[in-house]
Every structure is written in C-alpha cells, then in structure tokens.
C-alpha cells in the first residue's frame, strides 16, 4: 500500500536538510545563486526580512508567480512562508506543490490566537519557537521541523543564540526529571504531556531543530551549530551582503565544518561587507517579530 503525506515522510525531508543552509531568495536568479553555492533549500519570498522590516505595512504570502519561477529553476526543495494562522495561504502553497511551508512570524499574523492545524496538510511545516513549550505546541499542531525565531532581518545573532540555548537547556532539564514530575513540567511549559515525555527520554526535540533569525556570517552559522542546531536558515544575511555568492558559499562550508576553526578562518576571509545589522535594543518592543506566535 502506498501512503503519501505521512508524518515520517514529512519529518524525513527535514532530516535530509540537516547540516545544511536554507537561504531566502526573492527571484529565480537569486535561487540559482543559492543552489550554486550549495544551499540545501531555498525560501521563496517577495522581500527578505530586512526589507519587510523597513517597508512596514502588512506582509503576506508571496505571489505564486514568483514561487513557481523559483521552483522551475532549481532542483533543491523550495519552501515558502505563510502568515501565522492563515490556513488558506497554506492551501494555496500546497496546491502549487512547494516542498515545505514556513508558518512565519516574519509575515503579519492572520490569527492572534490560533496557529494552522498542520496535520491537515500533505506537505510538511516548519515553525519558529523561542522556547521548548512553544516548540512542542507547534509540534503538537503537526509541525515537522522547528527553527529558532531569533530576530529576523536584523543581522544580529543574539536572539537566535538566546532561543537555541533556552530550547536545548529546557530539553536537557526534562531529561533529569523523575517520571512523576513530567506532568507538572508539561503544565509549566504549556506543552502536550506526550511530547514532554518523549523529550524527557531523549533529551532533545522530537524533530529537527534549525537556527534562524539574525545569522549573517560563517562564524554565526558555526556558533549556532556548536550550540546544537541541526542546520541554519539565512534570511537577509546573504542577499543583503556585499557579495552574496561568496557569502553564501562561505556560510555553507562553515555549517559543514562548524567544529573546525581552521576551515572557519579560511572561509571567513575576503567576504566583503556583511549586512549592516541592527542593535536589538534600538528596535521598539512593538516592532520585534519574535513575540508573534502563541
């Protein structure tokens, strides 16, 4: 019997992306540059997060034409973003045949209470999380992959570091609890009990966990990998840098050889200017994207 869209097939694609870099692209030409640099997937969108931040207004799913143009020029998987809770945007992306949907805080939320029921779809979802409870709620809704939220479009890795450390730390803590303490832990984390029990057993998330939000250099990528990320998303960091093709290749190599300072030193040379970057404290609380999502 043939079964499509099973959870194993969904989480399986996430497993295949491990150790790789997923790059934001806004057109076919950028998608080709990303693929040639060794990206494991591209995220098709209308504007990179730094431009979404600058433009303001409501940010929505990209025009299907752009997504299809990108799907036509690369053989690697193509992802695209939908607004939090906007299941119709997700239905549209599924009909286009994108390989992964990112229910993303980078776009303006469409629902301030509910996320998408991701079990309804045949294609897998990735969702952002700042802590273990949030990650497990998303997995409970059917997410096949988690990424840190970080603070997208800033070129500042500090929030991604905070979120990755917290998720790993909370998972390790669960592993040290007695079985009769797990229900209270689930209550405190506001997470499904069954998933809390699974994390307590293995000491890590039940799905692949990537770093995202503010990664701008090869060293940033390697830092996230050493902190326990399974791979990285780079949004504005590539096409907002001075030399995108060179930066992209360097980040790919740094993600593979994250434990080898000699390689990291080599790939960090002569990259040109990284994206300018933003100090988090200079962004107003209401403009922080990471607090979107529930």
């Amino acid at each position: 019997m043939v079964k499509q869209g099973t959870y194993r097939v969904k989480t399986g694609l996430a497993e295949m992306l491990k150790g790789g870099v997923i790059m934001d692209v806004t057109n076919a030409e950028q998608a080709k540059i990303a693929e040639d640099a060794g990206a494991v997937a591209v995220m098709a969108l209308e504007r990179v997060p730094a431009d979404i931040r600058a433009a303001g207004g409501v940010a929505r799913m990209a025009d299907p034409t752009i997504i299809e143009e990108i799907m036509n020029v690369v053989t690697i998987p193509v992802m695209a973003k939908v607004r939090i809770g906007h299941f119709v945007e997700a239905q549209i992306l599924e009909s286009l045949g994108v390989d992964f949907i990112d229910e993303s805080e980078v776009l303006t939320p469409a629902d301030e209470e509910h996320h998408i029921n991701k079990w309804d779809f045949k294609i897998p979802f990735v969702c952002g999380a700042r802590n273990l409870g949030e990650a497990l709620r998303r997995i409970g809704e059917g997410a096949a992959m988690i990424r840190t939220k970080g603070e997208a479009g800033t070129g500042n890795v500090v929030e991604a570091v905070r979120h990755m450390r917290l998720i790993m730390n909370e998972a390790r803590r669960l592993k040290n609890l007695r079985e009769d303490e797990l229900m209270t832990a689930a209550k405190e984390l506001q997470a499904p009990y069954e998933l809390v029990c699974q994390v307590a057993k293995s000491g890590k998330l039940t799905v692949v966990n990537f770093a995202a939000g503010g990664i701008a250099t090869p060293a940033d990528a390697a830092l996230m990998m050493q902190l326990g990320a399974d791979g990285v998303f780079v949004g504005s960091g590539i096409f907002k840098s001075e030399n995108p093709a060179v930066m992209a290749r360097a980040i790919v190599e740094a993600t593979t050889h994250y434990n080898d300072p000699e390689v990291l030193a080599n790939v960090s040379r002569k990259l040109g200017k990284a994206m300018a970057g933003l100090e988090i404290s200079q962004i107003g609380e209401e403009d922080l994207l990471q607090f979107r999502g529930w």
Partner: protein
Amino acid sequence: MNIGVLALQGAVREHIQMIERCKARGISIKRPHELSLIDALIIPGGESTTIDKLMEKYNFVETIRKLNADGLPVYGTCAGLILLAKKITEGTQPLLKLMDIEVKRNAFGRQRESFEADLDISELGSRSYKGVFIRAPWIESVGQGVTVMAKFDGKIIMARQDKLLVSAFHPELTGDCRIHEYFIERFVKQGC
C-alpha cells in the same frame, strides 16, 4: 569493523545509529584523510548538489574513486545514489561517476508526492521492506554489470554493482536494519 558515513550534509546520525545497531562502529567522515580509518562508506540522503559541491571543494572525489577501485564498499541512499551514478538525465552531473546507472532526480515528484510503500527485495528474504521515498530519484537504465535488486511501480529503486550498492529510499528512517546488515555482511565481511 568501522563503517564511515560521509558527513558533509544530510541524514548522517540516522545511518550511524543503524550501523551501531548492526554491531559495527559508525564514524562520521568530514575530511578525506579520515577515509583511511574505515572498511566501508555510506553516502547518506541529503541534497545531492550540496554534497557534490562539498566533496569537490574538500577533495573527496579522487580519494573515494581510488579507494573504491581498491575495494572499498560504498552504499548510497537517495542523494547517495545520485552521487554514485555515471549519468543523470538532466541537471548537474555529479563528479564521482562510479556506477553504471542513469538516474533521474526527483523522479517520483516533489515533497507532496513523497511516500511510503512495502517493497519486495528478494535478497533480503520474503518479508517486505518499508520503503520511505522522499523527493526520490529512480534508476532509468542500468549497464551490463549492474544487478537490479528491487523495483517499485516498474521503476528500478535498488541495485548493486561490484563494490557498490544503491537505494532510492531511506532504510535509515525505518528502524529495520536488514539493509545495513546485508551491506555489512555481503559487501564488507564476505567481500561480495
């Protein structure tokens, strides 16, 4: 016995877990000099274009070709199958060019079409094997020295030739060790 898993990108951990369940030692390989430590190599699933570029950049291509010619068994799953093929129907041509097969990338479709199915693989016995196919390739045609081991829907999805074994699906995602055991038993211990 040491079985290396090429750890440039992809599902490395899952293969290492399977190898260890087969009572062998799994070693992740990031640099070519580490290949001298191993008795066999697995090229895992992942993105074939990514792994191919990193193999070239970090000088794996000639070393793996030479070691295979000298008898190192190599097993490729999904992206690994693409990377071992002599020819790809379209798109980037991988560099190893070891196995006399022509392969079509993403032949079963995109992620929406990814699937699980029960496979008959006669060399593994009569019990069916759960095949997990993710944006999977298939083998369009094989050369003379290649033995077809399994088909699905009329398409070749598993084959072997001399010291090479390939599958279009992912045994490392199933918990069923029979293919890893087969590889170790037939290709490493018995030397084919």
